[in-house]
């Protein structure tokens, strides 16, 4: 395999990994506050369809419309995540069931598809597409050029988000509160921090980021809308959060790894390598299971395990 191909693979991996990474960063925030949201796929699809709607139906300068489309995607997905937040935080419903319900409600045979039907979005291309930006004119730089300096704007946005989340979680007071709420909401409450507000904020922000991730599919990867266009990226995002031990840097690395691996799969089979492409596709899931098994017990738990209050509804009376 030559060097050009490797660089090509990595650049593709970064490209395809980005939407999953953005959605996973959002899920990371929700989970860090103690709320598991299995509805990522549904929220991404809502983001995708709304972004596409904007790209199709709003006219204006290209850049502005794209920004508007991404923001609308974020708002739509945040709105959907509000249902989950209300169900699990205010009404203390089971997070697993509510999250799955969200995916069914908004997913490929739900609201996102309904919106697509109503607005007649299928079959024809959108009017705006996000092209790679030749940053500082460094596109042709050897090795790093194609990987770092020739990507669409959302890739750079995802880096800003990742760094921002790292800084937020570790170096700010609200981030400290977030960690406390996800680990021990009773203690946070006793210190006068609002568990409810913290969880709502992060579930909604998580939803918004899932929407942004979803918009990548209809603004960057494809210029058409089809039902279920994210094809399972939301579930990979869930896996990524675990693989990354709930840390933003790990999310990016994991997403790119999966991007590379899936690109590698189709590349290899095109070159007549016998390994079936399903093996590569299964890798994220199998890796996640292995990580879960290793991290869950004994030594790994304290350092790399899930937030202690993840999945547990909080009520002052302990109910």
């Amino acid at each position, binding site marked *: 395999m030559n060097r050009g191909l490797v660089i090509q693979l990595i650049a593709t991996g970064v490209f395809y990994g980005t939407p999953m990474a953005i959605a996973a960063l959002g899920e990371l925030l929700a989970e860090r506050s103690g709320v598991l949201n299995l509805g990522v796929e549904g929220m991404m699809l809502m983001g995708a369809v709304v972004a596409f709607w904007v790209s199709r139906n709003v006219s204006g300068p290209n850049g502005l419309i794209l920004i508007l489309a991404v923001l609308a995607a974020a708002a739509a997905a945040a709105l959907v995540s509000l249902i989950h937040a209300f169900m699990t935080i205010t009404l203390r419903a089971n997070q697993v069931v509510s999250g799955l319900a969200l995916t069914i409600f908004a997913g490929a045979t739900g609201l996102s598809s309904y919106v697509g039907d109503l607005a007649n979005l299928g079959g024809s291309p959108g009017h705006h597409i996000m092209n790679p930006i030749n940053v500082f004119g460094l596109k042709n730089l050897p090795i790093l050029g194609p990987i770092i300096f020739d990507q669409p704007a959302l890739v750079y946005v995802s880096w800003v988000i990742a760094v921002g989340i790292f800084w937020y979680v570790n170096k700010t007071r609200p981030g400290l509160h977030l*960690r406390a709420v996800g*680990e021990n909401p009773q203690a946070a409450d006793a210190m006068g921090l609002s568990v409810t507000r913290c969880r709502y904020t992060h579930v909604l922000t998580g939803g918004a980021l899932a929407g942004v991730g979803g918009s990548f599919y209809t603004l960057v990867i494809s210029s058409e809308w089809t039902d279920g266009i994210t094809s399972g990226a939301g579930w990979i995002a869930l896996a990524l959060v675990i693989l990354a031990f709930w840390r933003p840097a790990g999310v990016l690395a994991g997403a790119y790894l999966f991007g590379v691996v899936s690109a590698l799969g189709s590349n290899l089979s095109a070159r007549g390598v016998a390994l079936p492409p399903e093996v590569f596709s299964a890798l994220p899931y199998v890796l996640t299971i292995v990580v879960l098994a290793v991290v869950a017990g004994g030594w790994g738990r304290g350092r790399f395990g899930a937030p202690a209050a993840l999945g547990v509804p909080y009520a002052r009376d302990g109910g």
Partner: protein
Amino acid sequence: MTKRFPGVVANDKVDFEVLSGEVHALLGENGSGKTTLCKMLTGMYQPTAGHIEVDGEPVVLHSPGDAHRHGIFMVHQHFSLVERLTVAENVMLGWSSDGSRIRFNRRRAEQEVARLAEQYEMPVQADRTIAALSIGERQRVEILKAVCRGARVLILDEPTTVLTPQEAERLFASMRRLAKAGNSVIFISHKLHEVLAVSDRVSVLRRGVTTGTVELGDHAASVDRKDLARMMVGREIELGRRRRVTRAQPAASAGLEIKELVVHNDLGVLAVDGVTLDVAAGEVLGIAGVAGNGQREFAEAIAGVRPRTRGEVSVGGTEIRSGRPLAALAAGMAFVPEDRMGMGLASGIDVAENMVLKSFRTGAFSRGPLIRRGRVVDNASSLLEGYQLRGGPASLVGQLSGGNAQKVLLARELASKPRALVIAAPTRGLDVGVTETVRRLIAEAADAGTAVVMISEDLDEVLDLADRIAVMSGGRITGIVEAQGADVEEIGLLMMGQVRAA
């Protein structure tokens, strides 16, 4: 102040006043309304009628945050600490020394907390995670948290239950220092001698009503312990006298034998380190010691609930295999764990089914793979009647009061007429009435020939009930003393890990 819950008046026109610069003890049996009062003071609950004044100003406290703004803080028995965060991060939760609302600099926070710890003479290491701290250190972090935030009223809820006598002394010194600096300290306790040792004034709550406030001041000695106790329970109780005077003669038959027991805890850390004990049939052996010194693992290991690393346990001469609760059960072992609702009873299941938790496999309650519901219910009804318990067989255990739950648990365990009984924290959190019943049942079981191991942090209880007292510290038995005429000072030293000279 009045607080009503659906169907109950938890506090009825309670008047309670704390002055600055005093340590004010709040006495009262469980269920007397202390908790409710404190929850109102800290903004967890709102009063149904009446009000709270701080410095003469009426205030409305909607949340703990409101209470904090008025300088009211509470240190609960269960600490509000985030285990995976460091001491500094815990102290800085929702508070900052420099008023910054966004930036959080961990190293600066650690320096700041270290400085504060020194200033208030409460040494802790600011950069360690809570998970790595001892109970005493965690308590210090809790107090530090409150003090940093400008606490003027500090409520301590039974702070000494988890401490050694020496650690408690240290805590009392801190309390007095805080009061001297002009703060108010509300000290909630069950233990009269502690209250007398540290408080300026004492208020007593009973059935949601304040029954009186007593000035201690310099006349501490003159206050009659019995008076206070009477105010608490509304009748005379006997203090300082052994309830169990008829000590059974050690029977010839073997009771419970424990040889060279070694047990590890859930994290794989050595918890019980070579304990050998013989308990005769009809004897009550008390295990005294500060919680967390291996008692829990010890109890679970002899009851077969936890695997032993080494050592032998036998009941009535029958050796019990390690980690087999059913084998222990078959040999005649009964076990009342300290964590009643966490281990002894399933709260979402009804009383009847809880009563057959250990006997549902027998022919009496099952046929083939099916459970005979009719018999299960009959069994529960007769036990409920026998132990004078309110509530029907179909009520959920979670809806019982703590006292009734403990009675259900004891009823089930004693119903099998066990050869050996391991009972941990028998009366923790129970009111005086139930406490007496539970102690009577333990004494009766011993008199009927059961070998009883009673693990309790309440030294008075152990002194009252046990024939011999084994003191546990650091997973070892540091000494065994006869309960009759035992020297409390000496027991305290044994609890600190000082091994008794042979």
